[in-house]
């Protein structure tokens, strides 16, 4: 299945949007966290500043999000991970409310209760969580509901290669295989589970090979490329919509930043990231678009300006938004 011009441009613009968002967040995250305005003796204070707590950024992993979400409708479900921004953006989660949530403000998606790892947008069928491997069962559940409701909706579970060694991965694959659930399992293999690389965590080379063990087709995407992901995801989504059940896709992607912001990455070989950046998927897609006559300098400039404006507006909205009142902490435990 070939991507249309519209889909190609959508993927390009959203990859730019994700990249600019993550790079902006990397800068903003540092506000208030560095000396001299923190506890004496500390190099960094994770709990300080306008965006406190942990931060996991997906720069480099854009192709996985856009290549899959290009096939999805609003009614299709996406369940993401602790590194959720690229999935949320590609799924259409409103940038302003998402950013306000990351800033812990009352106009955030969860009124400030969830934060960066717990973004919920039922309107766009998006959710994520901070527990590795936890995305797969709820995606199976959304797929199960679609089947029971007689809809051709599809669910997508994103997870990392580290999660593929967690029990929920194996249970979910088997369940989806057994019940022929309309779910697409997408493994982002960025090689690193914090500091442990795949060779030291996984008994086999490709998680796509695990699919056969569960009676489910597996597709290995060996390149961090939006079009390759698009092709594989197209197959999986089409299969699910037609009632053909689940697919497992593994994408070799690249994590440009640390596991979390503040991660010194001493465990990572020197020069690895700069090497990875040489095959940046965004300029690669731009080259393809230009070669097909779909992108010229003026159009590119317009896209980049639009992206910049969206990101700027989202952060300004978040900064302006008020904090919730302390008493709200006791509300919404139960509906």
């Amino acid at each position, binding site marked *: 299945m070939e991507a249309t011009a519209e889909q190609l441009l959508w993927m390009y613009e959203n990859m730019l949007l994700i990249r600019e968002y993550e790079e902006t967040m990397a800068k903003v995250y540092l506000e208030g966290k560095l000396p001299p305005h923190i506890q004496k003796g500390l190099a960094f204070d994770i*709990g300080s500043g306008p965006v406190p707590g942990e931060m996991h950024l997906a720069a480099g992993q854009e192709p996985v999000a856009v290549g899959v979400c290009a096939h999805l409708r609003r009614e299709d479900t996406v369940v993401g991970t602790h590194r959720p921004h690229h999935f949320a953006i590609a799924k259409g989660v409103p940038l302003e409310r998402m950013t306000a949530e990351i800033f812990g403000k009352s106009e955030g998606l969860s009124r400030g209760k969830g934060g960066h790892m717990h973004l919920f947008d039922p309107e766009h069928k998006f959710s994520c*969580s901070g*527990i590795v491997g936890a995305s797969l069962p709820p995606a199976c559940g959304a797929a199960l509901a679609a089947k029971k409701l007689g809809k051709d909706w599809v669910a997508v579970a994103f997870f990392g290669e*580290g999660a593929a060694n967690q029990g929920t991965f194996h249970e979910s694959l088997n369940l989806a295989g057994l019940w022929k659930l309309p779910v697409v399992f997408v493994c982002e293999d960025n090689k690193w589970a*914090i500091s*442990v690389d795949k060779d030291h965590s996984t008994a086999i080379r490709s998680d796509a090979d695990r699919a056969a063990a569960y009676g489910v087709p597996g597709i290995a995407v060996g390149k961090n490329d939006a079009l390759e992901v698009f092709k594989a995801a197209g197959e999986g989504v089409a299969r699910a919509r037609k009632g053909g059940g689940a697919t497992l896709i593994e994408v070799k992607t690249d994590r440009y930043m640390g596991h979390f912001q503040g991660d010194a990455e001493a465990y990572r070989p020197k020069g690895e990231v700069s090497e990875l950046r040489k095959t940046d998927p965004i300029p690669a897609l731009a080259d393809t678009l230009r070669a097909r006559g779909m992108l010229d300098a003026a159009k590119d400039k317009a896209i980049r300006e639009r992206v910049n404006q969206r990101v700027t507006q989202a952060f300004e909205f978040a900064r302006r938004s008020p904090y919730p009142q*302390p008493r709200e902490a006791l509300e919404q*435990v139960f509906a």
Partner: protein
Amino acid sequence: MATTARKLTMAQAIAEAIGQEMERDPKVFVMGEDIGKYGGIFGATGGLLDRFGPERIMDTPISESAFIGSATGAAAEGMRPIAELMFVDFFGVCMDQIYNHLAKNTYMSGGNVRLPVVLMTAIGGGYNDAAQHSQCLYGLFAHVPGLKVVVPSNAYDAKGLMIEAIRDDNPVMYFFHKGIMGLPWMAYYEGSTTEVPQDAYTVPFGQARVAREGSDVTIVTLSQVVQKALLAAAELEKEGIRAEVIDLRTLVPLDVDTVLRSVTKTGRLLVADEDYLNFGLTGEIAALIAERLDRIALKSPVRRLGIPGVPIPYSRPLEQSVIPQVHHIADACRAMIGAKLARAA
């Protein structure tokens, strides 16, 4: 033999304890995520990979049931494993192996099986890590039978308790609060960094520490809250309120006598906890007193502080309001000074 004391952070003290025991006993080894080159996300195994190599400092896949269950199996074969559960909040993915097997096999075997396992884990919030990365949960592990529960508040105790844990032939859950590890990237209470003797030493389980003496109110507490309670007590001292701070150190076994002695003296009990308020530690301590009102005269109703039945919220003002702070502790003590008891009809 060198007995020089120098100051260590709690993280350094824990790593030192593990390193010394690993030198002494070749059967001790460590399994966990990112404990090797990374040294543990919270520094508990800092420097140990270089000293002992990957055969004894073993990075694991994200497979908690498998490697924590492996700790049980290896211990049954005579090894002395230490397993790290990165965040206590992740216990959900492996709890069966912990509470149904590790905790119960000794009993179910009529004492024939010994499981010298230390399961160490990071706890605590206050730095905006939200509902799935900020919990304490030692109350939950103390509730199910068969696990010893150790919760240090400072570096000196941390080293001694870890050595005691490793030498114990029973499963020990060891909870270290991230906000007192003395990490260079998280604000922490400096009272937790203490002088720590170079030599190996133990701190016995079931022995609470009177962290500060007082006569007006007893604050029973543990972990990072000990440090907050000490700050509150210093503040209250200026108002003429003398608070006694009891650092429980271990929940299983629990030093009931020290708590009773203190409350008998002061007549006022505040249990200050960072775990959930409901159905946990604070209720347990309050019940121990309630059962002994024939011998203990209270001057004020018992008061409890804990997280009030909500998942821990992300946003700073929300998180600060649900996790007990220094001012909550001080305010509770002040309220107890003026409180009255009901009279029997």
